[in-house]
């Protein structure tokens, strides 16, 4: 009986195409937009995530998120180091700037100055060179995508020079640093070197990165730092969440994505709902005939839901497949869209959304199926 019902479904090729298109469209739009949104939110806190082995971020109390810098006095570093429970604390300089190649190609850049002694905060994913080469004069680390944007089509090569605020910078290290929210190029260098590249005012220290002693709770240590120094201190996880919350609350990004996602659901629902309704309406005599033949209402509901499920499954497979292809081919590790992907939980969430969409669309039509009276067959004359 199931194969018969499936054949009846595919007998209406145009409507099936419409249904599959509606589901695939909604799936693609929702999955792609959700993936991009999550990727963008992840990007907003990548600087925090990339600073591995750091438990606590300390900053000026006015700082609300990682991209807002209010420099502290350098002496704050020593105050933090003096707080019980702190294993070590190092400075981090963070500034937005621009870089220029000798042939004049210019890109925006995120400059991160890490502790001269320990180099804590440099991306751990090194593609070329040694991290210790950053100790050489004018040495900088550049991320692979930034390098490819500055020297498109050229192979990665150490020793290339850049102009950074009229000062010479030599590429000593190429990393696979996680992409930043807005900057095209990510540069790591020593703290002292960074200050030379981007002159600042009296206060220069953007963040203090700290580690809790073994066995101590990082949140407790962060609270101790805050209470003893008057600075703002939080765990890396808390700072990540706070940064994401800031972007969610203070930018139009969530509204923009939510609108597109909602549009995908609404348009998809409209296409699926209307087409399924047409499908059901056109097939009412057939449903009535099935009732005449002895199919109960409950079984008929099951059969209609099966038809909807088949359409939903095919549409979802096509839509999620297209979304996966987008992330696979458009968001390669070397492209500007790197880091954007389609996590399993988005695919699952979209599946749940599409299931709901199909169910709602089907339920609106099921009433007509249930009310389809076999008697209509007697009064429908040829």
């Amino acid at each position, binding site marked *: 009986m199931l194969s018969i019902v499936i054949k009846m479904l595919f*007998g209406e090729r145009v409507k099936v195409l419409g249904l599959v298109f509606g589901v695939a469209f909604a799936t693609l739009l929702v999955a792609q937009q959700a993936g991009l949104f999550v990727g963008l939110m992840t990007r907003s806190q990548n600087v925090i995530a990339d600073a591995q082995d750091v438990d606590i971020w300390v900053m000026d109390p006015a700082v609300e998120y990682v991209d807002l810098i209010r420099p502290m006095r350098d002496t704050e570093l020593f105050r933090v180091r003096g707080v019980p429970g702190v294993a070590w604390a190092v400075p981090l300089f963070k500034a937005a700037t621009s870089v220029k190649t000798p042939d004049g190609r210019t890109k925006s850049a995120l400059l991160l100055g890490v502790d001269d002694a320990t180099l804590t905060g440099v991306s751990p994913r090194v593609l070329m060179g040694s991290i210790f080469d950053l100790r050489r004069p004018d040495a900088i680390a550049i991320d692979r995508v930034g390098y490819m944007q500055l020297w498109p089509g050229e192979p990665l090569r150490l020793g290339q020079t850049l102009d950074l605020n009229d000062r010479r910078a030599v590429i000593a290290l190429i990393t696979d640093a996680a992409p930043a929210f807005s900057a095209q190029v990510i540069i790591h260098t020593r703290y002292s070197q960074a200050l030379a590249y981007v002159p600042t005012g009296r206060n220069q220290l953007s963040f203090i990165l700290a580690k809790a002693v073994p066995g101590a709770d990082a949140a407790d240590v962060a609270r101790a730092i805050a209470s003893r120094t008057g600075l703002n201190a939080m765990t890396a996880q808390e700072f990540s969440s706070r940064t994401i919350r800031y972007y969610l609350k203070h930018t139009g990004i969530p509204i923009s994505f939510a609108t597109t996602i909602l549009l995908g659901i609404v348009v998809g629902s409209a296409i699926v709902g209307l087409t399924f309704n047409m499908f059901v309406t056109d097939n009412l005599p057939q449903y009535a005939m099935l009732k005449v033949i002895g199919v109960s209402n409950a079984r008929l509901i099951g059969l209609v839901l099966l038809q909807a499920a088949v359409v939903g499954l095919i549409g979802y497979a096509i839509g999620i497949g297209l979304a996966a292809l987008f992330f696979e081919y458009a968001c390669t590790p070397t492209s500007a869209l790197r880091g954007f992907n389609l996590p399993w939980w988005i695919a699952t969430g979209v599946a749940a959304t599409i299931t709901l969409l199909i169910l709602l669309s089907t339920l609106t039509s099921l009433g007509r199926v249930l009310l389809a009276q076999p008697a209509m067959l*007697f009064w429908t004359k040829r």
Partner: protein
Amino acid sequence: MSDALTTPRDAAIACRRLVKDLGRGKFRARVLHEVDVDVYAGEMTLLVGPSGCGKTTLISTIAGILKPESGSVQLFGTAIDKLSRRQLTRFRGNNVGLVLQQLNLFAALTAVENVAVPLLVLRHGAEVAYARAASLLEGLGLVAKTHKYPAELSVGEQQRVAIARAIVHQPRLVICDEPTAALDAASGRLVMQLLRATTLNKDRAVLVVTHDHRIFPFADRIIHMDDGRIGTIDSNLNREAA
């Protein structure tokens, strides 16, 4: 010649004081007025009468598709008006085969698949269902058409497929609504011969609603209806096909 009514137990169909209204509000009208009628197994009974006299309403009520306002309908001793909707659907699936004027073949299914549907609905295995459907179609001279879709069949062939679908599960009652209305005289005659030959046996009753005088010679009994009431009943007719 008018029959005396038998007891319900003897009749394949026994309707007693059957009342049915159609329409709503001020458009509500009584279509069946306390109808008493019996139909017997082993006979082909024709239900005839002018348009709007209630023939279709009567067979719809007999098939359990419409529920009467009052009165009773017994099919082979089962009071179908007492059955729940679910029981009635199951009873109809097992015991009633319908051939409608609008054949309502499933357009996406081949002839053999169309015929197999009632067996599949009754949860027979697909292999058995298709084998029995194919064998029945072969018996109806459609062996070359088993895998054709309804759109690829002539009206007469479609009619035969519809008949096959109505009887494939061996129901005890076959009801046909105007089976020859869209056919020319020769085709109509052929369909009636086929109906008699394939559907009629001592355990099965066949009830045919028709306007078509040309098929009266095929009847064992003819029930005349007028204005929602049973008129004369002609019995023990000479059957052309017999």
